[in-house]
C-alpha cells in the first residue's frame, strides 16, 4: 500500500442531532506528519467531529476519509490505523507498565515479539526503562501521561488523536509531552490535537478554530495572528469565540 500524503480528508461534514446542527459543513485536510490543532469553545462541536473521525459515530452527510478509509463503511479499518489518547483515557492502574503495553499491543493484534520490541524502544525514548515492572499507580502523574501517549502510538498508527492530553499537567511535563509529539510527528505520524492551553496552539503547524459548529478559521498560528492582528493565539481565539457569544 502506498501511503497517501493526505491522511484526513473532510468534505462537507454535517452532523445533526434532531434539529441541532453539531457540525455544519466542515471542510479540511490534514497532511502526513502534520501537527494539527483542533480548537473550539465548549460545545462548539469538537467532540462530535473527533468521534466521527475515529469511527465512533457516523456523520449525517459528507465525504470523510481517515487514513484512506471511509468513515461510513470502514470504521473497523480506521480503528486499526489510528491511535487515541485523552485526559480521561488512563492506563490500568493495577497493571505494571509493561503489562499495559502488552495489553494494548494485543488489542491491535501485534505479535508478542513485536510488543516486546516496541515496548523496549518506547520506554527507551521516554528514558523510563527502569519503570517497566512498576505498577502504574506507583508512578508519577507526568510519567503516566507520557506512557499513555506511547501506548497510543504503539501500533504505529497513521494518525493519533489527542483530546486535551495535557490537562492539569505541570508546565515542565507539559513541554516534555510536546517534545514527544514533535518527535512522533517527525517520524511521519499525523497528530490531531485539542487543547485548552492557548500557548500550545502555537506549537501546532496549523490550527482550526471551531465556533458554533463551523470552522471559523484555519491556518498556521502565524498567519492567524496576522489576519486577526493579534499578539497571541489566545487573543485570536477569544476574538473569534467572543464574536459568536455576542450574537447568541
Amino acid at each position: 500500500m502506498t501511503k497517501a500524503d493526505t491522511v484526513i480528508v473532510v468534505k462537507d461534514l454535517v452532523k445533526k442531532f434532531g434539529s441541532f446542527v453539531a457540525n455544519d459543513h466542515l471542510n479540511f485536510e490534514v497532511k502526513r506528519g502534520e501537527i494539527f490543532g483542533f480548537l473550539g469553545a465548549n460545545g462548539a462541536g469538537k467532540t462530535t467531529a473527533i468521534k466521527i473521525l475515529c469511527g465512533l459515530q457516523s456523520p449525517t452527510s459528507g465525504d470523510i476519509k481517515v487514513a484512506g478509509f471511509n468513515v461510513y463503511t470502514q470504521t473497523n479499518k480506521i480503528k486499526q490505523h489510528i491511535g487515541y489518547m485523552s485526559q480521561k483515557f488512563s492506563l490500568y492502574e493495577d497493571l505494571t507498565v509493561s503489562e499495559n503495553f502488552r495489553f494494548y499491543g494485543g488489542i491491535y493484534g501485534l505479535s508478542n515479539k513485536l510488543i516486546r520490541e516496541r515496548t523496549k524502544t518506547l520506554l527507551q525514548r521516554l528514558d523510563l526503562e527502569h519503570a517497566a515492572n512498576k505498577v502504574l499507580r506507583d508512578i508519577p502523574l507526568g510519567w503516566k501521561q507520557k506512557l499513555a501517549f506511547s501506548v497510543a502510538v504503539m501500533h504505529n498508527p497513521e494518525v493519533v488523536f489527542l483530546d486535551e492530553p495535557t490537562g492539569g499537567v505541570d508546565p515542565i511535563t507539559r513541554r516534555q509531552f510536546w517534545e514527544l509529539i514533535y518527535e512522533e510527528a517527525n517520524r511521519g505520524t499525523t497528530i490531531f490535537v485539542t487543547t485548552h492551553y492557548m500557548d500550545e496552539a502555537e506549537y501546532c503547524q496549523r490550527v482550526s478554530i471551531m465556533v458554533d459548529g463551523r470552522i471559523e478559521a484555519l491556518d498556521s498560528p502565524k498567519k492567524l495572528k496576522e489576519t486577526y492582528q493579534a499578539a497571541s493565539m489566545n487573543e485570536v481565539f477569544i476574538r473569534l469565540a467572543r464574536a459568536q457569544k455576542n450574537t447568541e
Partner: protein
Amino acid sequence: MKQQPAVVANDLTKSYKSQLALKKVSFQIENGELFGFIGPDGAGKTTLFHLLTTLLIPDTGSASVRGFDTVADYAAIRKIVGYMPGRFSLYQDLTVEENLNFFAGIFNTTIAENYHLIEDIYKQIEPFKTRRAGKLSGGMKQKLALSCALIHKPEVLFLDEPTTGVDAVSRMEFWEMLRKLKQQGITIVVSTPYMDEAALCDRVALMQNGEIMLTNTPQRIVDGFKGELLAVSSDNMFDLLHQLENIPDTAAAYRFGDRIHYVSERNIDPEIIQKALASSGQKNVVIEPITPVIEDCFIMLMKSKSKNDPN
C-alpha cells in the same frame, strides 16, 4: 473586636495510606482577598480544600476559617462558607431553578433574599431555568454551580478548580465574575492548574507535590524572577531548542508559545547566543529580553526544587 483573618493554615499535613498529599503547608488569607492556589494535578490542591472546608481532618497542623478551627468548630464554618467542588456537583435531573431553590433551602434562605448577589451570573442562565442541569453546556453548568455556592451569601467562598476543562473564553468570563464578587466583600479562595490565571488573583500560592513553593502577589513573584529571561525565535524552531540547551551555562530553555524562553546561569550577552546559533546554521534568529510571567517563575521554581531535592 479585631476581625479574624479569612483563612489561616499552620503546618497542615495530610496523607492517604502511604501517600503524602500535603506537606507542612502554611499560609494566611486576608479578608476580601482573591487568593489562588496554582499548581498541576497531584499538587495537593483538592486535599487542601477538603481540609479547609472541614471535610477532612489534618494529620498534623491546624487551620481556621474566620477564627473558627476546622476540626473543633466545623459546624460554625459550614454556616459561613460556600464551596464548589472540582467535580460538577449539581443534581443533573433537577432543573436550573430547582437546583438553586434546593441549595437556598438547605441554608435556610431563599433565592429572593440574596438575589442581588447572584444576579449578574444568574441572569445569564435564567432563560434556561426550566432546563435540567444535566443538559446545560459546560459554561452554563459552571455559572449555575457558582450561583448555588453563593446563594446563602457566604463570607468565604472556596472554588476548587472551577475552570478546569473550560475553554479560554468561558474562563475569562468566569474570572470577570469573580472580580465582581470580590467587590461585594466576599473572600474568594480558588485553585487552578492554569498558570495564566494566577495574574488575575490578588495573591497566589504556587503548589507542587504537596508543598507551597512560594506565596506572594503575582507582581512580586514576577519581580523576584532570578536571572534575565530571553525570548528566542528562528526559522527552525525544532532544532533551536536543542541548540540552545547545548550552550554552556544554560539554566533553562523551553518552548513558550511561538518562541523559546531562555535563561542562563550567568548574565550572558545575547550576541554570544546569536553567534552560537548562527554557527549551527540557524537563520533569522531574533533574541529579545522579556518580562517573565507566572509560568516562567513556576518552571524555574520546579527546576531549583528538583536540583536541591535528589528525588
